[in-house]
């Protein structure tokens, strides 16, 4: 059984071994430290100057990555906590993403900005956020997120192949979880980009849930309770690509759709998913798509307060119950 952190680390080893044009830069990424979450462990020992611990300069870090990409190489940049990607917004939104199209011809910018993200670890207001929503709708920029169902090496290859900068979110609570493992109630399959988690042998679900990688386990907990205590069958769709929102399969017959997003409510990824789904599903929807988000609030450090702000399994359960009953 491989933990997500080990899986990511192995994928980076494989990526750097297979492609000598790939550089990796970030704060404290070099050995023996190997990154704040150890995702880059062993890379600098193995790949020398292609792996660089940098000064505390997120903006320049993203810019240097874009420069390497512009000069014909490829770059993976690690932002230690995704909260700090705000410091790199200009480089990402105004340079790296725009450069792909603002010079009148496609300019490839193979750049992956890795963003350890999310809360439930008691790190407090500036080390716990899910900032995906702030990067939605930037022309030339794609957003991806690690999930327990998608091979990270495949995702890295896809992101580089796009030739445009990508933010890659990795929820910190996912690092200690295992890849590809589900409890015995559920099984998953990949339908294109999207992991589809279904109840083994069940008929049509009462509700189809859509969420991103970091919320998978909390959502599965809710699905288990909904089944065992409320006798409601849910299906779950987990896209690795968050933006542009990919084709979400099998929704034409959905009785109800609920999008669950750890970002704060308002201008969120969940509302972007709903925006894409409404015109497609309008004729068949029986009620509005349910959006479940973290509260529009600062994320507190104290665990009991943090729990109340971020999306938890009981809130997902309550939202589904309220919508379908």
């Amino acid at each position, binding site marked *: 059984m491989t933990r997500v952190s080990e899986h990511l680390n192995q994928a980076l080893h494989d990526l750097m071994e297979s492609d000598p044009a790939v*550089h990796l830069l970030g704060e404290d990424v070099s050995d023996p430290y190997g990154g704040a979450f150890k995702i880059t462990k062993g890379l600098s020992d193995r790949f020398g100057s292609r792996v*660089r611990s*940098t*000064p505390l*300069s997120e*903006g*320049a*870090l*993203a*810019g*240097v*990555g*874009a*420069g*390497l*990409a*512009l*000069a*014909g*190489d490829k*770059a993976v940049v690690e932002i230690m906590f995704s909260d700090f990607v705000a410091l790199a917004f*200009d*480089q990402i939104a*105004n*340079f790296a993403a725009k*450069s*792909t*199209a*603002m*010079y*009148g*011809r*496609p*300019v490839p910018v193979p750049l992956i900005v890795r963003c350890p993200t999310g809360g439930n670890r008691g790190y407090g207001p500036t080390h716990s956020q899910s900032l995906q929503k702030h990067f939605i709708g930037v022309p*030339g920029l*794609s957003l991806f997120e690690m999930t327990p169902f998608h091979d990270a090496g495949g995702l890295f290859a896809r992101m580089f192949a*796009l*030739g*445009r900068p990508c933010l890659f979110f990795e929820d910190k609570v996912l690092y200690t979880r295992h890849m590809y493992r589900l409890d015995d109630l559920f099984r998953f399959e990949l339908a294109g980009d999207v992991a589809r988690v279904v109840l083994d042998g069940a008929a049509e679900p009462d509700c189809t849930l859509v969420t991103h990688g970091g919320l998978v386990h909390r959502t599965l907990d809710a699905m288990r309770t909904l089944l065992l205590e409320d006798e409601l069958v849910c299906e779950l769709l987990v896209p690795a690509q968050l933006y*542009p929102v990919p*084709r979400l399969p099998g929704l*034409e017959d959905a009785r109800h759709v609920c999008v669950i997003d750890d970002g704060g409510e308002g201008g969120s990824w969940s509302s972007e998913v709903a925006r*894409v789904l409404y*015109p*497609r*599903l*309008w*004729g*068949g*929807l029986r009620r509005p798509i349910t959006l479940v988000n973290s509260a529009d609030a600062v994320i507190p450090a104290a665990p009991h307060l943090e729990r109340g702000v971020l999306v938890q399994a009981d809130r997902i359960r309550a939202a589904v119950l309220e919508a379908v009953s």
Partner: protein
Amino acid sequence: MIVTAASPQSLRPPPSDRDLRSLLLIRHFELALLRLFEQGAVSGTTHTCLGQEYIPVALAPLLLDDDFVFSNHRGHGHFLARHAEPYGLLAEIMGREGALCGGVGGSQHVYHRRFLSTGVQGESLPVATGVALKLAGSGALACAYVGDGTWGEGAVYEALNMAALWRLPLLVVVEHNGIAQSTPTPAQLAGTIGARAAAFGVRHHRVTSTDVEEIRSELAPLVAAVRSEPSPLVAEFVTHRIGPHSKGDDTRSPEEIDRARRSDWHTRYAAADPERFARLDREQQEFVDRLVAEIAARPPATPPAPSASAPAPEPATGRRP
């Protein structure tokens, strides 16, 4: 900072015809742009480099084909001194057929071969640092033009720190014209640029001459060291913008503008060799007149094809209830 123009006799050796042509092409190109704006023939904004033309012309032979040049909002001179593509540049600025970047980039966003400009202050320096990281050891360098106002941006310091730490071939050319849009440098910059470079252990050289040959002989060994060591260099030109920041927005007093004009290379060069100067000046003016007439007569630039990676719209396939 005002440097009084030296006497005409000091232009030794005299500029080549090639340099004079380049200087005068840029001068007439920029003057034509201001006229076109007044006539409403150009939209948006533009930033001319009147008075500063000699900087990229002096640097032109010091920069090689493999070097990557990053320019800023005031970049027409940087471009024209490096690439003989005045048609493509004017078409880009006017949004006409043959535009270098399909009319998308306009005056401030040009990417041609190894020349790239961006419109956000300080943004190019980290990118240039990344390019320099790739070029280090190859003998090529990354050159980034910035102004004195750019030193207000944190990105400059992040990039300089990295370039010094990692010993990268980064040439930072500072066009210190003493005014950031409307704000005089003493009101926006504490300390000096030289002391800033020193704080990072980065070599700094201050250029006060407007004589292209003199500037080249001063800078050639320093630029060679950028390539060979490699190491970053801040080359600070004390210069004067004799035109407005963009168009018709000069808030300086007539006396101040006069002072800036007195140090214009143009006056000195004209006085040093009046007959040759007048001939080449007429030649470049006539060339730019023809250039403007030709580009203005072209049809609008056609929009570029959408990027292959752009998302396709979702088809509506919902059932009817």
